[in-house]
């Protein structure tokens, strides 16, 4: 994985000291909250429902055991013994003290991490495929391109005050594991006639106005990648609305301007920028690429797995994914125990995951946007030992992509923007399906819960989505069906009137039962919904 050079380290260290001085001046009363707020937000420090919250960037979700240990130490030393992995492949701490914040950033800088650009109207942490570098179906590892874009976008003076926040995802396979088309810019590295290039999808997003990004250019040569991205941003920066924050995202611009006109302006800007020579030398991309070379996979490994333990066999079936190297798999560590809080991990669990990455996965971990952790390169022969260690720590739940593998935002339990609680609903649903035994029969069923219209829980993209709303001071939950963040991307539709907390759990089970009754051979929940439509579900839900 990428290692800081001296320039990277100097930049991050300097930012830590700058923030230390800003925090000191705030504590001494030399800065007002109005003056300090944009400064702390630039360093990922929010003031949330109960305390300050620090969001730490994990670039494209990749980290090593040293970094995971450091994240665990921060949870232990400065927070309350746990952290929350987010749908942007980051980690958040919920109980941070302002007087500790600079020390935390200094601790992060020691392991080449930071919290820069995890808030504000700038280019946020760039996300990617959590199986990058391991997936059997990718044309190339997308992370060098994500890293190049990370370096380009970090402290970019022209894009530090965009009309609104800006999110980029980079993938390199036809299977979309990063919700690529629901980003402001989604980039897919593709192969065409033996050459690699980048397909640009611009103007997607969730939030209050969900949109699927159209493809504005199917093949940008990779030695023009940054220039094209810059052109996309420039047109947005020029025309994006600053008069209304609810209409300020690029998706609104592309929609109102029209994809064709937006593309025309991007191409004109691109032609202009090509003359300016803003693209970094191709040698820089080559340099970055050397950090992402394959680890030394062993040859002639066995593909045999002893499946005599049924619990282990179930975990292998559900939580391991095919790898490009024979004898290896990618193993998913579920942070979704039945009745647990999706995405939360304790200090001890983080230390254990770091140790297991060191012992079994070439020292590498990934954070999934679905709030689980991946050990990307595990020998099949090591799986039983790995699973045994995970089971003992409460990390062996065999539920990847099942109805129990729920995405949930922090909701009203932690978030000052939320209208309703998400986590208790997720807990009750996972408990319901664990108890009624339907999880196995339901197969792949992606359930996503947001506590407000900002959609941090990706409810628009759930096969089943839940949106918490405030109904005259009382929590209420809308049910949505038919969304997908994957290559078969679609936006979920609301079924009808909302439900109270108990009612929404019943409603999810009712929808699941409709699927079990109506499905045909091989159909997932989403396939059945698309075939039969909303009506049978509405009839079952509302009579």
């Amino acid at each position, binding site marked *: 994985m990428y290692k800081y050079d001296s320039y990277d380290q100097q930049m991050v260290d300097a930012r830590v000291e700058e923030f230390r001085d800003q925090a000191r001046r*705030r*504590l001494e*009363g030399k800065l007002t*909250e109005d003056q300090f707020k944009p400064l702390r937000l630039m360093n990922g420090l929010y*003031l949330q*429902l*109960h*305390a*300050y919250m620090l969001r730490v960037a994990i670039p494209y979700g990749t980290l090593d055991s040293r970094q995971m240990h450091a994240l665990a130490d921060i949870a232990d030393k400065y927070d*309350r013994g746990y952290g929350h992995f987010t749908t942007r492949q980051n980690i958040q701490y*919920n*109980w*941070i*003290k*302002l*007087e500790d914040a600079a020390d935390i950033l200094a601790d992060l800088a020691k392991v080449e991490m930071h919290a820069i650009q995890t808030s504000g109207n700038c280019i946020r942490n760039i996300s990617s495929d959590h199986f990058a570098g391991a997936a059997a179906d990718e044309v190339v590892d997308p992370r060098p391109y994500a890293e190049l874009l990370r370096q380009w976008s970090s402290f970019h003076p022209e894009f530090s005050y965009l009309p609104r926040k800006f999110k980029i995802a980079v993938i390199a396979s036809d299977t979309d594991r990063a919700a690529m088309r629901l980003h402001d810019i989604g980039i897919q590295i593709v192969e065409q006639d033996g050459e690699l290039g980048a397909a640009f999808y611009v103007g997607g997003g969730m939030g209050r106005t969900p949109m699927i990004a159209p493809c504005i250019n199917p093949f940008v040569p990779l030695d023009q990648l940054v220039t094209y991205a810059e052109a996309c941003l420039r047109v947005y920066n020029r025309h994006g609305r600053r008069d209304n924050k609810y209409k300020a995202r690029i998706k609104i611009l592309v929609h109102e301007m029209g994809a064709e006109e937006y593309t025309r302006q991007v191409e004109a800007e691109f032609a202009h920028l090509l003359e300016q020579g803003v693209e970094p030398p191709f040698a820089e991309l080559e340099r970055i690429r050397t950090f992402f070379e394959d680890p030394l996979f062993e040859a002639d490994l066995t593909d045999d797995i002893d499946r005599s333990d049924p619990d282990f066999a179930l975990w292998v079936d559900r939580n391991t994914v095919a790898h490009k190297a024979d004898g290896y798999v990618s193993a998913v560590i579920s942070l979704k125990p039945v009745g647990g*809080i999706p995405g939360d991990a304790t200090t001890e669990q983080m230390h254990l995951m770091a140790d297991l990455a060191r012992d079994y996965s070439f020292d590498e971990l990934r954070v999934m946007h679905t709030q689980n952790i991946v050990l990307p390169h595990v020998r099949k022969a090591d799986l039983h030992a790995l699973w045994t260690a995970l089971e003992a720590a409460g990390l062996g739940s065999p539920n990847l992509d099942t109805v129990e593998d729920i995405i949930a935002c922090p909701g*009203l*339990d*932690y978030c*000052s923007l*939320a*209208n309703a*609680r998400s*986590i*208790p609903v997720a*807990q009750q649903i996972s408990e319901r399906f664990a108890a009624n035994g339907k999880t196995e029969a339901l197969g792949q069923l992606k359930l996503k819960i947001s506590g407000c219209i900002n959609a941090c829980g990706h409810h628009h993209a759930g096969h089943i989505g839940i949106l918490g709303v405030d109904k005259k*001071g*009382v*929590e209420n939950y809308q049910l949505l069906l038919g969304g997908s963040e994957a290559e078969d991307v679609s936006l979920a539709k609301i079924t009808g009137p909302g439900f109270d907390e108990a009612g929404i759990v019943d409603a999810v089970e009712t929808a699941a039962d409709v699927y079990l009754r109506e499905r045909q051979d091989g159909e997932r929940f989403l396939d059945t919904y698309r075939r039969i439509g909303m009506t049978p579900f509405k009839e079952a839900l509302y009579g």
Partner: protein
Amino acid sequence: MRILTGNDLKTGAVTWWTGSDWSLHVEDAVDVTGSEDEIARREESARRVNAPYAIDATMDEGSPRPSHIKDRVRAIGPTVRPDLTLKPADPDIGNWVI
């Protein structure tokens, strides 16, 4: 009634105006109807509180109960982590919040 809340500048902890100081416990809050803006301005400029604002509340068994669920969650802590709330031993805490 109106009660005044904010966050401790150093720790970020939720605090409530008691009439003379700031408390971590909402039951210590007093009615500030009519004077909330003046108190908020004065206390914030003295850095005894960060980002103060007034909310609606009612008296419930002798102590203030915030009217909106968001403020009740804020007063107690995350409902999903009773071990982190201010009243971890209170079995009725969920009922109070909801």
